[in-house]
């Protein structure tokens, strides 16, 4: 097959691929973006205007169900029963003897940012040196100061709204922080009562018109897709501006099947499936892989182990350590209104922020993340019973739920990795990714701290008993995934250098969370993914200009 030629091919149009595509096209390169999933039209594909808005989540055109497999996860132990996922109406939610499995990431132009809540966090400076300072995980080959200018750039382009500073981190959020919702102001009392310092979260949702997009109208449903484009998902920010340069072309519904290496340690061709069902080849001076921490290693392993000279492609998989607790407040709050995660506390975010464990966490308002913002959720999960008593309780309780969410550090572990399933293949005959993930006792101690502090917050806010907990302990969580193509200085212990460049393949770069040597103490990763991609793209452009690529 004849190959179409470009300066750069970017595989994946999420936070990393979008940022890379924008920066490369801005630098004058002709960029082709290949995205396995479809495009979503904000004005016609999302359903938040419909009466049945609550009956579906994000309206996926291409299901993410079944795209990956799992090896059996660890057995659950009675010692940790207090960390189970439970609901007072439904009972114990994961009923097997092992952690429940399930993986859901929206696939499309915009990637996971299509259904994210828009948290826009910078990693704490201490997160970059876990090994040298605390003897766990791995050090990043860069520090916070190396990434700071690219955080600035990403925040400006996305339109991040947030406070001026956070512990240990300076900010450059271009827009003022959002006001807290009425419900979150009450929750903030609980944060303070539990010894935490609440503040407005940094969010990729516009607090005023910006970049031709309107300000947010606080519908609370970022996870179901934003029909107004006020949420800064990658499709309406990086990709939109990349295409506007006239030098970036995005092919949706175009899965990449393999990448071929050739002489001189140079990647030569990218093979993708076309709409006609045939295989097509493209060539480029540089290939940037940005499929995420599960699909990037899968693509490389399915490409005859490309870039896997270290044997580490797929290793050091990190999932999300998360806990959510929900309770009823005695007063009407209208808690379904406002932005998801509008309130946050960073007091325990540093690697030494929790006594007795390494790896910190953060706490935030979470009623939207918990999905407890509509009549159906209240009827099914909040209000027990039936009949006239149920209706009376619905009237009394609707809008009164407060939820606290906590996300913590997930350290690399030898039993957490991605490989290729030996039996199951995708529609193109390629092995699916098989996931293994393990929570060791330190992770569970961290989770126990998160659970206890969340309960303390809700009690201090004046809430009644907790009626629902959602936990990583018994329920694998794919909200944020990391680590499977770790960056580092040494080819023996990493897959790429600090610019995401394969140690061997001189024109192959990675630009997603698979680069992360550590997960951070609960920070949302999308801003860091974008910042890393911008830094890498700048380096690629420099190499291209110098003739090194």
């Amino acid at each position, binding site marked *: 097959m004849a190959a179409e030629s470009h300066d750069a091919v970017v595989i994946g149009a999420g936070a990393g691929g979008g940022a890379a595509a924008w920066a490369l096209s801005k630098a004058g390169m002709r960029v082709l973006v290949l995205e396995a999933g479809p495009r979503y039209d904000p004005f016609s594909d999302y359903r938040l205007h419909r009466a049945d808005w609550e009956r579906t989540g994000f309206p996926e055109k291409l299901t993410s169900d079944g795209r990956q497999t799992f090896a059996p996860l660890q057995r659950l132990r009675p010692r940790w029963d207090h960390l189970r996922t439970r609901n007072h109406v439904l009972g114990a939610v994961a009923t097997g003897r092992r952690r429940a499995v399930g993986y859901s990431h929206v696939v499309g132009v915009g990637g996971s940012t299509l259904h994210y809540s828009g948290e826009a966090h910078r990693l704490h400076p201490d997160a970059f040196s876990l090994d040298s300072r605390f003897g766990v995980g791995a050090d990043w080959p860069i520090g916070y100061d190396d990434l700071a200018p690219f955080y600035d750039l990403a925040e400006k382009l996305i339109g991040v709204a947030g406070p001026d500073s956070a512990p240990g981190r300076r900010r450059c959020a271009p827009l003022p922080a959002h006001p807290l919702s009425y419900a979150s102001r009450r929750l903030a009392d609980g944060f303070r009562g539990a010894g935490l310092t609440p503040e407005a979260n940094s969010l990729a949702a516009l607090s005023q018109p910006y970049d031709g997009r309107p300000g947010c109208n606080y519908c609370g449903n970022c*996870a179901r897709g934003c029909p107004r484009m006020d949420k800064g998902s990658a499709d309406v920010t990086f990709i939109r501006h990349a295409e506007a340069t006239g030098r970036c072309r995005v092919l949706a519904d175009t899965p990449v099947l393999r990448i071929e290496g050739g002489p001189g340690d140079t990647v030569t061709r990218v093979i993708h499936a076309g709409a006609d069902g045939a295989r097509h080849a493209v060539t480029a001076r540089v290939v940037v892989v940005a499929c995420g921490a599960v699909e990037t290693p899968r693509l490389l392993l399915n490409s005859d182990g490309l870039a896997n000279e270290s044997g580490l492609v797929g290793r050091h998989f990190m999932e999300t350590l998360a806990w959510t607790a929900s309770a009823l407040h005695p007063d009407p709050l209208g808690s379904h209104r406002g932005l998801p995660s509008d309130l946050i506390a960073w007091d325990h975010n540093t690697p030494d922020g929790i006594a007795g464990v390494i790896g910190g966490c953060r706490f935030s308002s979470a009623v939207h993340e918990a999905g407890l913002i509509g009549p159906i959720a209240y009827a099914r999960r909040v209000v027990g019973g039936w009949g006239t008593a149920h209706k009376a309780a619905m009237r009394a309780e609707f809008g009164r739920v407060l939820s606290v969410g906590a996300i913590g550090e997930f350290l690399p572990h030898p039993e957490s990795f991605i490989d290729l399933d030996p039996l199951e293949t995708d529609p193109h005959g390629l092995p699916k990714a098989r996931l293994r993930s393990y929570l060791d006792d330190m992770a569970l101690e961290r989770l126990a701290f998160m659970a206890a502090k969340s309960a303390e917050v809700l009690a201090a806010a004046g809430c009644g008993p907790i009626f629902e907990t959602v936990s990583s302990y018994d329920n694998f969580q794919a909200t944020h995934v990391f680590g499977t193509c770790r960056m580092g200085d040494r080819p023996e212990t990493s897959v790429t250098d600090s610019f995401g460049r394969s140690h061997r393949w001189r024109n192959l770069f990675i630009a997603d969370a698979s680069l992360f040597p550590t997960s951070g103490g609960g920070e949302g990763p999308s801003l860091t993914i974008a910042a890393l991609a911008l830094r890498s793209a700048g380096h690629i452009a420099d190499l291209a200009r110098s003739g090194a690529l």
Partner: protein
Amino acid sequence: MRLSRRLLLTALAWSLGGLPARRLWPRAAQAAAPLTALGPYLDILIPDDGASPAATALGVEAALRERAGADPAYQKLLALGCAALDQAARAQGADDFAALQPGAQRALVARLAAAGSDTGAGVFFARTRWDAMDAYYGRAESWPMLGYDGPPQPDGFMDFASPPGRPE
């Protein structure tokens, strides 16, 4: 971290096709039966309380029947549950569940609600409650009584920073 729909469905903890019918249901209830009890049952589950309509008025029975039409296991669950309700009603001297007085109907539904999760009755109650709440509260007509002024778009909730208002 969202409580995903997948996880919530597994929370019911029972596969519709996974439990042998003869273990769960009285022998007489296993025969296929018309779903004449379904509407009256749903109107006990979600009644007209004077401020909001009953389930069947908002299409809940039709929604469950439509689901049953596409899912043989669900059809079987509804048939067995309705047959059990009719059988219990006949034991009280009524022709069927629909012919019972509302108080007696409520008593039978209360027995379903109290049934163990490893029984057919418990499975039937939990699953129909789950689906009925979805069908009922997914209708805008059910919202005014809650003070819910959705859907979320196109207006959003610009009063998010204020105490919630409620209709008179």
